[in-house]
């Protein structure tokens, strides 16, 4: 058996969960993190980040729409996935997926976006013609009341949804952490810290993603970046990162100190098969370096250009680092045998159902969807485009 070192149980020769299962927590993490950024303004009244509020919601929606795709492509029988809705096994964390996903999509994100955009949708509806008029009319459910009283109700409801949305976002991604953390058979996964680490790394990745998108879209629209907004986002990114890093280090130090029966096997794995993805990419390049960069901007007075460049670099490194973290959890947890006596390798193919090509397509798709959403639901609320005349 190629790539096998030591002894593995005969059935362990092939990895069960592929790169697609790495993508799912990465994507839902971006969703949860983007939403938390949006809630900073809506619930915690951090008004500095308002320019990114709608963008964050649309980003979350674009990624959430794509989220089930890697799972469907992984299942042996995707046509049976509806069973999760009709006979969910309540003892299984994975059974929560169908309902948590649906709740978050319909009950939180779609509703929040609808209530926030309603005034603009009605205005567009009334001033458009032909197919566009029908389309926007349907989006508004043909209710055209945009009086101040109605808008006040919208605002209250939107606020309430966001408040409910915060624990929902934690649930959406926390249960993914629990899916791994509750598997007592796998010592790399089994820790109560797993859902917490997942949530905080989700916040970090989502905030970084929205920050990069904001910077990129401002550049594309040739509009000056609101530095107050950007600096605030970077500050929250820094804080979230420090917490995330502390949690991960706590887990690591605890394992090294206790050195339980699985430690020898896992330690060897991290130092050999997982060295590049875990030590180099996740920890050094993906966590320590962005934290240092962000810390520099918090402590040293830097020019706007310098800060923008540092934020862009830190943001990009963060996304790579958080992806590496998902990879190290999912793939790393399957590289060693449950006998603790051997290791296998992950042979990722390219153009198969669970290969690299579908993974790339799945990661590109949310940006395509986001581009469409940006057109249909322009987040830059004060522009003339909304009147529907230009677009």
């Amino acid at each position, binding site marked *: *058996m190629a790539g096998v070192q030591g*002894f*593995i*149980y*005969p*059935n*362990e*020769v*092939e990895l*069960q*969960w592929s790169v697609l299962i790495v993508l799912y927590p990465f994507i839902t993490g971006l969703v949860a993190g983007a939403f938390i950024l949006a809630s900073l303004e809506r619930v915690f009244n951090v008004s500095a980040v308002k320019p990114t509020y709608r963008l964050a919601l649309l980003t979350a929606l674009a990624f959430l729409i794509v989220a089930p795709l890697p*799972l469907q492509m*992984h*299942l*042996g*029988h*995707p046509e*049976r*996935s509806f*069973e*999760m809705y009709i*006979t*969910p*096994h309540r*003892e*299984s*964390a*994975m*059974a929560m*997926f169908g309902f948590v996903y649906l709740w978050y999509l319909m009950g939180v994100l779609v509703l929040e976006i609808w209530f926030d955009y309603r005034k603009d949708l009605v205005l567009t509806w009334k001033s458009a013609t032909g197919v566009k008029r029908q389309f926007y009319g349907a989006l508004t459910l043909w209710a055209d009341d945009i009086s101040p009283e109605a808008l006040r109700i919208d605002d209250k409801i939107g606020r309430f949804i966001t408040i409910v949305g915060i624990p929902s976002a934690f649930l959406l991604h926390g249960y993914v952490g629990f*899916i791994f953390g*509750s*598997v*007592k*058979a*796998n010592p790399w996964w089994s820790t109560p810290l797993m859902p917490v680490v997942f949530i905080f790394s989700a916040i970090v990745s989502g905030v970084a993603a929205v920050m990069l998108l904001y910077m990129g879209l401002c550049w594309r629209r040739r509009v000056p970046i609101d530095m107050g907004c950007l600096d605030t986002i970077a500050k929250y990114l820094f804080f979230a990162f420090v917490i995330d890093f502390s949690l991960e280090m706590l887990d690591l130090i605890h394992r090294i100190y206790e050195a339980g029966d699985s430690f*020898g096997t896992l330690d060897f794995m991290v130092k050999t098969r997982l060295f590049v993805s875990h030590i180099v990419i996740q920890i050094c390049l993906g966590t320590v370096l962005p934290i240092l960069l962000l810390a520099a901007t918090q402590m040293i007075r830097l020019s706007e250009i310098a800060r923008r460049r540092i934020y862009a670099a830190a943001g990009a490194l963060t996304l790579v680092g958080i992806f590496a973290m998902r990879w190290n959890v999912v793939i790393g947890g*399957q590289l060693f*045998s*449950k*006998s*603790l*006596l051997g290791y296998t390798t992950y042979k990722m193919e390219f153009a198969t159902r669970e290969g690299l090509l579908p993974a790339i397509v799945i990661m590109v798709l949310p940006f395509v969807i986001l581009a469409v959403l940006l057109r249909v639901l322009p987040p830059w609320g004060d522009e003339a485009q909304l009147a529907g005349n230009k677009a």
Partner: protein
Amino acid sequence: MDQDRRGFLQDAGKFILLTGAATIAWDFVVAGAPEQAPNYVATDHWWGMIIDIDKCIGSGNCVRACKAENDVPREEGCFRTWVERYRVDPDDLDHPLVDSPDGGYDGFPEIDRPGDGLKVFFVPKLCNQCADSPCTQVCPVGATFESPDGVVLVDKTRCLGCRYCVQACPYGCRYIDPRTHTVDKCTLCYHRITKGLTAACCEVCPTGARQLVDLKNPEDPVHQFIREHKIHVLKPDLATGAKVYYNGLDGAVR
């Protein structure tokens, strides 16, 4: 008037109660009798297995018989049962050398001569039919379950192939059948034991190292066996309620 109202309420209560009860009973009627084997009552049995390491000669009969009986694919990584050979160096107890060539399907090639200084023994493995199985706990749709007689089974018409149960099993006894894209595992030859036969692996074991046992049967030899031998289960620290009892299981066995 009062009497009429009370009478009415009593009748209504009875009606509601009986309708409710009838509805529940109807569910059972409609579901059909779940046990079609004529004399087999599942709740009379609680199946397990005894494996006597001191008797296993590593013949591989069990692996071959299982594959034949249950139409298990011959592909790599598809084993319902397999045999591991442990070679333990008394000076390095933490690092036993283990091999399982093709699961032991063709027996084992010679590596050491007897008396070479290593402690060598064979360990047959299979699904432990856990009473508190972590694999059935994590199935999202109820496609794997424990039967009323203690056998962990897979409903192939409902399995999604999500592989969560494969991850959750501490013993590595589950695999994905490449033909059906659903999960598969040892069924303790459920189709045989419910008809009074023994499991295929036990039938062909040349030394009687593997024996099917019914823990609910007071006359089953398992009770005496457990009294007379030092019994172990695999990975007891995970509290899976494993029902495969090993005699002579060395501490080196993972």
